[in-house]
């Protein structure tokens, strides 16, 4: 079969905030850039981010990037790389101002400056009073940013391949990445996109869990592609459960609701976070608040007839504040629960939210893997940014407001490094047809006809398995069973057959390709979790309840091709300031 070929300087896979910020940097530098996305760009999941983006603008209370850096490192439970965190926190103010100049409709203070609200895990002066560092456009900050970044790319004349699904990276025998094989969803035709540099910006994989805040499209496609190309995933055992999802349904209620003064109640009407985090209370880190809610429910203090949730109270803020600052969640709660949060408390429960782990990169967005002499050898031509990457700025637990920051900081950094790389590498490397054939075989496998399990059934089983065997509280026995179950699902995936073999906009085939990615990501997650015998950040082991810096202050690297784990040290040395050594983490 002859497959059409296109050539670009850079291929960006994914059109969320990270991909679009990188594409903008490249288009402005006159690089020939193609953005491939399985959905129209403004459908990408960045659109759903609510509360805001962190930057120490000090518009409301005193602040500086160094305090932001401290909070981020503490929030990461000291697993974050301090050079990357310094880089991100230093860049934050400039990049938020740049977004404002590009048109993001930030909410405003009376003096005309960008509105900032308090968020979890934020402090002034290295652990002192609560900071207000999160720049917000009401509670639709992600929407405002994503649309603005898309608009900027329209102006910059970026080349978009909308509704193209990336099947696999093309990688030659020397290990260099040469682009990707993609599928035009509308026609069902494969296409080879050759590129001197490829940036993965495919977002997270919240769909490995049953109840999640994530869009249907968050299936870890870039993570699956990396694993199949022999690249490990880093720190996958750290998956963030957001404390305030709508109970039983999973829709996100922004942390900004607590930032604006909302708080959590158990069935006795007790403001229970005061017991778990006497200082920060409801604005402790997300891992801390999620565990507190689980504990309340488990110990019989949950609300409702089944005692299976707690309440988020906002009615004391008044209708005006709720409408002005939280209009989006007000609408969502009215739509899905038929109550008005300006007058009634919201039933909430933690829900799977954010993939802290991902494709290992350095702070320039270059993908780095262990080789004979080093734990960080660059993969020629391959970059990653945003939720699919692990820089790592979030370590074992991400702070709210740092994900929108991560995508613009490292999207831009990757763009800048790619520009430099392109100057030094002017030619495309020769196409590796064996690699192309492997990608096409992956696609052709779904043409097999006959009876077999359905994609939907197996996906539902995977999500349920991950929820039961790799949830908030974990232990060795449960995780080991989880590994066996996910391995079994991986085996059974071979026998799944599609009934729909049409070419035109075959969504069933896309979901099958997505399921292959989900299974690999789930396996990396549960295997990494079973191996880390300590509790740190979002990874909570009932059989190893303490953090163990002597043995476990290190990053995991999981290969699923041969189910192997390696480890590499945390970068404790920042760029210019003193290191923040691990301390007990209390809020």
């Amino acid at each position, binding site marked *: 079969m002859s497959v059409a070929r296109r050539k670009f300087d850079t291929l960006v896979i994914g059109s969320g905030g990270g991909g679009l910020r990188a594409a903008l940097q490249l288009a402005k530098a006159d690089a020939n850039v193609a953005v491939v996305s399985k959905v*129209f760009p403004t459908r990408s999941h960045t659109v759903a981010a609510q509360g805001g983006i962190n930057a120490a603008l000090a518009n409301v209370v005193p602040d500086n990037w160094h305090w932001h850096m401290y909070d981020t490192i503490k929030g990461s439970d000291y697993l974050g790389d301090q050079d990357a965190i310094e880089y991100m926190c230093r860049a934050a103010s400039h990049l938020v101002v740049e977004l404002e100049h590009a048109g993001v409709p930030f909410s405003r203070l009376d003096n005309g400056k960008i509105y900032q609200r308090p968020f979890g895990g934020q402090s002034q002066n290295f652990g002192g009073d609560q900071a207000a560092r999160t720049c917000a456009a009401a509670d639709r900050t992600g929407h405002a940013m994503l649309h603005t970044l898309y608009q900027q790319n329209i102006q910059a004349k970026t080349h978009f391949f909308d509704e193209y699904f990336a099947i696999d990276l093309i990688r030659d025998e020397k290990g260099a990445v040469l682009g990707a094989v993609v599928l035009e969803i509308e026609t069902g035709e494969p296409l080879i996109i050759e590129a001197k540099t490829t940036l993965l910006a495919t977002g997270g994989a919240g769909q490995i869990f049953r109840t999640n805040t994530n869009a249907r499209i968050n299936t870890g496609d870039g993570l699956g592609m990396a694993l199949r190309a022999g690249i490990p995933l880093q720190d996958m055992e750290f998956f963030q459960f957001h404390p305030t999802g709508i109970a039983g349904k999973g829709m996100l209620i922004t942390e900004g609701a607590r930032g604006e003064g909302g708080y959590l109640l158990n069935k006795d009407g007790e403001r229970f976070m005061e017991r778990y985090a006497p200082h920060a209370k409801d604005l402790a880190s997300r891992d801390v608040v999620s565990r507190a809610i689980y504990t309340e429910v488990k110990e019989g203090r949950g609300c409702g007839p089944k005692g299976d949730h707690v309440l988020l109270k906002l009615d004391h803020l008044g209708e005006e504040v709720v409408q002005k600052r939280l209009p989006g969640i007000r609408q969502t709660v009215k739509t899905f629960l038929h109550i008005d949060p300006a007058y009634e408390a919201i039933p909430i429960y933690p829900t799977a939210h954010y993939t802290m782990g991902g494709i290992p990169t350095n702070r320039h967005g270059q993908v780095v893997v262990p080789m004979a002499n080093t734990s960080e050898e660059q993969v020629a031509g391959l970059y990653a940014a945003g939720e699919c990457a692990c820089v790592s700025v979030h370590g074992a637990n991400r702070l709210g407001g740092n994900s929108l920051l991560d995508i613009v900081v490292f999207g831009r950094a990757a763009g800048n490094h790619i520009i430099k790389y392109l100057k030094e590498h002017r030619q495309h490397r020769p196409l590796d047809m064996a690699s192309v054939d492997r990608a096409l075989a992956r696609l052709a496998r779904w043409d097999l006809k006959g009876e077999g399990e359905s994609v939907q059934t197996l996906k539902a089983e995977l999500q349920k398995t991950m929820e039961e065997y790799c949830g908030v509280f974990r232990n060795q026995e449960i995780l080991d069973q989880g590994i066996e179950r996910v391995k079994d699902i991986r085996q059974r995936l071979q026998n799944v057959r599609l009934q729909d073999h049409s070419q035109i906009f075959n969504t069933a085939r896309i979901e099958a390709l997505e399921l292959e990615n989900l299974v690999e990501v789930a396996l990396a997650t549960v295997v990494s979790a079973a191996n880390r015998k300590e509790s740190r950040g979002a990874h909570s082991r009932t059989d190893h309840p303490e953090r163990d810096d002597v043995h476990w202050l290190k990053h995991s690297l999981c290969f699923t091709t041969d189910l192997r784990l390696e480890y590499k040290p945390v970068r404790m040395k920042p760029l210019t300031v003193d290191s923040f050594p691990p301390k007990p983490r209390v809020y």
Partner: protein
Amino acid sequence: MRFLIQRFNPETDKKPYMQEYEITVTPDMMLLDAFKAIKEQDESLAIRYSCGEGVCGSDAVNINGVNGLSCITPLAELKEPVTVNPVPGMPIIRDLIVDMSQFYHQYRAVKPYLIRHDPEPEMEVLQSPEERDKLDGLYECILCGCCSTACPSFWWNPDKFRGPAALLQAWRFLADSRDQATAMRLDELEGPYRLFRCHTIMNCMNVCPKQLNPTEAIGNIKKLMLKHSI
């Protein structure tokens, strides 16, 4: 509950036809949940959807004759059988999936980005809360296309009339105190079609799932044009 859903696969069908499905529903289900249940019976039904909470704008369809997002349309509010068609006026790719190219083209044509001529200040461009309030009801547009595909003027002239969604965005930038391209934006909308094909039928505001009001935005552009011409 019974559903009548328009099907069309260009590989096998000469023209669209209605297919009936029956599924068991619960009181809190949305139309999207029904689609998912149907897809478990019949994976060939093609729909677009993603966030499932009315934020990404992927899943606009025509429900019992009215455009809306399937993910935030409660089944409890729908008359049986629920008839679902693709949004009207656009080329059908397959089943409920339409080709949105024309819609996106009109969106890009209004130059939906902030244009400033002043040198960039080091910090944010100041904007008072009152100035910022003028963007409420405008910036929230999710580009689902419910409005433009409910607009008879857009059906007749999708290549010439910008349509309600694009014009809402045109006003979003005209209304922004930071934007400095008012004259250019107004010039671009001159002529009998781009703006003036709006006959204030107001389907757009009636169907908008985010409760935005393109008709009002179009009226504001016309008023501003008048002010600029005298």
